[in-house]
């Protein structure tokens, strides 16, 4: 009450103060300690009205940003995921709500921070925070406020953050694995990374560079920008330098413009793109034949049609949806959040600090077979990074247009690699 020392309006302020500041730790009937974002009242759409509610926020690119096409299915899948969790009995004495605090970040860091501040007093953690510039804008606050978040991105910087619970191999390791695969399959001599700027593209390019040095490839990297009309430089560089393998990290329309443009002018080398470079509708585009002939996709887990208990549960939970690997990603990204909440409840401490502590104790997350055992080692810090990648090829018959050619594997380069700082700093 020291701040009230300042004279005049003491009475007025004392009244006002009562209402809105701070939140105290409470202890529920079952002896679980809680603070922010957990209520004893049931969720708005509760399956079992006797249970309390854990509120998780979703901050995603849902209307006009560049990743809307992925963000909407990701968000959908996460809603379905938590609905399934609730139907199966919830988390301890609680159910989980991810529908009340869904916000659009327009892929803009300032907007992200605003909506984050707005929902922060009401949520325990973030079920999704999409995009790395956007997540970076709220990361300092997440760390001071102990808000755990599951990122919708695969940058290597997240391995160094305790409050970020990422899934799957990061872009850096993914392109190392892609090049190990290429080394066995195509015996390339020259490798090129065509990438967007920033931690998405730079991360993958840095991985390709490290791998190239190790495997003795001649390496070059070409930066490009978002927009199909802005790919001429990349296409020109590919044709000029004639690499044997191109590691591609762009959006889908841009990837098609690069691959289609290079192929139309006689390029015969291979392309390996990260999962965000793919969209099944590309098959109907003029670049379709070129993609079928030259493109392969590296991805952190199996696509929609993969045969695993987790994939099956996802397909069952999302009946009638047009298959998209946005769903797969959203589903996979939810497992570590579930594991962290379960651990926190088991520890009897569902406060924000308790969830952070629970994350640090997680040495493995059960992905129901979507990722192998051992994935989700958050206790191990950067050393516990998951390093397996799957390679897929174009297959018009498959539900999302790709089928795997190489199951999840960890190449020798990635195995020997220790992540001691974010990869993109090494480009």
């Amino acid at each position, binding site marked *: 009450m020291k701040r009230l020392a300042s004279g005049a309006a003491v009475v007025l302020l004392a009244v006002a103060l009562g209402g809105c500041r701070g939140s105290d730790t409470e202890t529920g009937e079952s002896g679980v300690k809680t603070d922010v974002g957990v209520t004893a009242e049931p969720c708005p759409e509760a399956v079992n009205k006797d249970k309390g509610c854990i509120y998780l926020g979703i901050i995603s690119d849902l*209307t006009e940003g560049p990743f809307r096409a992925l963000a909407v299915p990701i968000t959908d899948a996460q809603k379905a995921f938590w609905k399934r969790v609730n139907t199966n009995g919830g988390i301890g004495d609680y159910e989980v709500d991810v529908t009340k605090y869904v916000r659009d970040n327009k892929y803009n860091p300032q907007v992200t921070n605003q909506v984050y501040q707005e929902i922060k007093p009401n949520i325990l953690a973030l079920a999704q925070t999409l995009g790395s510039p956007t997540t970076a804008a709220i990361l300092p606050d997440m760390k001071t406020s102990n808000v755990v978040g599951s990122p919708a991105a695969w940058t290597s910087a997240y391995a160094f953050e305790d409050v970020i619970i990422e899934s799957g191999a990061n872009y850096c390791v993914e392109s190392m694995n892609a090049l190990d695969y290429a080394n066995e399959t195509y015996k390339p001599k020259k490798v090129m990374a065509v990438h967007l700027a920033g931690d998405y593209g730079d991360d993958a390019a840095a991985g390709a560079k490290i791998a190239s040095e190790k495997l003795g490839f001649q390496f070059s990297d070409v930066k490009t920008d978002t*927009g199909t009309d802005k790919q001429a430089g990349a296409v020109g560089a590919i044709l*000029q330098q004639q690499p044997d393998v191109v590691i591609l990290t762009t*959006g889908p*329309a841009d990837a098609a413009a690069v691959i289609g443009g290079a192929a139309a002018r006689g390029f015969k080398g291979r392309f390996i793109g990260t999962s965000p470079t793919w969209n099944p509708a590309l098959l109907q585009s*003029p670049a379709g034949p070129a993609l079928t002939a030259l493109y392969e996709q590296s991805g952190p887990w199996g696509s929609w049609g993969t045969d695993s208990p987790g994939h099956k549960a996802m397909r069952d939970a999302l009946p009638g949806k047009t298959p998209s690997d946005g769903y797969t990603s959203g589903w996979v990204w939810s497992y570590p959040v579930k594991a962290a909440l379960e651990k926190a409840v088991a520890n009897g401490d569902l406060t924000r600090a308790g969830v952070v502590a629970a994350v640090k104790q997680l040495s493995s997350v059960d992905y129901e077979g979507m990722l192998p055992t051992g994935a989700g080692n958050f206790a191990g810090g950067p050393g516990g990074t998951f390093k397996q990648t799957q390679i897929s090829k174009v297959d018009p018959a498959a539900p999302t247009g790709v089928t795997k050619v190489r199951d999840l594997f960890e190449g020798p380069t990635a195995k020997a690699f220790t992540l001691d700082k974010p990869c993109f700093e090494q480009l």
Partner: protein
Amino acid sequence: MTAFVEGFVRGLGVGSVYALLALGFVIIYKATRVISFAQPALMLAGVVLVSHLAGPIGFWAALPVAALLTALLGLGIERGAVRPMVGRPAFVVAIITLGVDVAIRVVVNIFIGLDVRNVHDPWGLSTLVIGNVHIEHRHIAAFLCAAVLVAALFVFFRFSRMGLAMRAAADDQEAALAQGVSVGAVFALSWALAGALAAVGGTFAAAGGSFDGTLWLTALVALPVIILGGLDSLPGAVVGGLAVGVAQELVATYQNHTPWLGGNVSVITPYVLMLLVLLVRPYGLFGTREVERV
């Protein structure tokens, strides 16, 4: 040399798209003295219409239908958001068109859906090979289509009654009004024309590839184009568009030799070109020099 010729021809193709978009801006500016920031949304709307219609009725039928519908949309914007602002400061109207742009793009994004789309154009990525020079059909098509449309516009403005009225209104609104020109109709028609041009330009921008919501960024390149050519000059828009297209593609071809400029410097070529031209000619290449009286 091959690379130069290829780059030049690509530049003409890309530049034709910019020219069509810039023509829309200039027509609106000439008629209403307003820069319409809603052009990106109109373009996106046109392209999305083409992509939806091309399946059932074929590309060649879809293009004019989409252009017509986009023209109607332009007309609607003019009626609803711009006409009430006649006589207000040009910049307030410009901000209004920005609001329109945001609103329309959100709606159009809904129709883009979750997958990338394509316009089902007949050219795809097929190329014409002369010697060892590869020339893509879509770039030739864009250039020819732009040429036809520019010629048609020329005939329209030069010989038709309405074209004459538009020129008169651009020259002096009050005098034209006094001579019986319906300035309202001129405003409406200019927005409709700009909408149709944006739809066609956007379709060629998307031809041979796929597009998603980010396509609207392409329309922004038309801004330096119109300044380069002169805000109130139709030939300026065409020449400016082609010049920017060629410059951008040539820079893209040779930018690997100048890594110190940063990656993909071709993206800012239009703006640098604009600044350079304005240092010499403050009203663009063909813009009318304002005669000032106190």
